[in-house]
């Protein structure tokens, strides 16, 4: 059974802390994505990666950075957490290069910054 796993389901951090959200997929997918989901705003893309050590900014990259040192792992980093980064964070991966593909999502991490 294919899986995208995220390191935590729930996380509470304080303002100013450095936060790491980890995502691991076991499907050998090239493409990986980080989204945040907020009520009334839907899913918004933060960063994505097409390959190891490769990253591209999405729609709302400010305040975030990412790391992809290995194909299966894509990390989202909040350098200095702020209360407006309280959100649901979703990681996803996609197989590249085929006409039919599905985007697999992790279960999400609900982050609260106090």
């Amino acid at each position, binding site marked *: 059974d294919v899986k*995208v796993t*995220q390191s935590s389901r729930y996380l509470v951090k304080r303002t100013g802390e450095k936060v790491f959200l980890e995502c691991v997929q076991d499907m050998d997918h090239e*493409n990986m*994505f980080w*989204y945040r989901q907020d009520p*009334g*705003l*839907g*899913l918004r*893309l933060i960063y*994505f990666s*097409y390959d190891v050590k490769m990253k591209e900014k*999405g729609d709302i990259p400010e305040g975030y950075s990412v790391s992809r040192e290995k194909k299966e792992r894509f990390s989202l980093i909040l350098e200095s957490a702020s209360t407006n980064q309280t959100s*649901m964070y*979703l990681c*996803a991966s*996609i197989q*590249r*290069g085929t*006409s*039919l593909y*599905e*985007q*697999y*999502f*992790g*279960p*999400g991490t*609900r982050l609260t910054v106090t």
Partner: protein
Amino acid sequence: SQELEQSPQSLIVQEGKNLTINCTSSKTLYGLYWYKQKYGEGLIFLMMLQKGGEEKSHEKITAKLDEKKQQSSLHITASQPSHAGIYLCGADPISGNTPLVFGKGTRLSVIA
């Protein structure tokens, strides 16, 4: 940039009733995806539509793609409490590997 508009934003139906959720794109659709999200959890892929007129079904859920209208509809027959959740549509902005664009979701509640 492409935008997907879903309607309605939220929906409450009585168990056993049929319902339809629509997803309309501001640009040409090259692939349309439907996902379901249970409250507070990640998204689960339901189905993908690629060709105009294509229709797919999964259990009691049917999705159709109208290329000319740049629209997809998701229809649930004889709704059950297990159908409750948030339904999102996603689309490829262009053919290829660019990230998906998502609608804001439709929150479905099914009451007994």
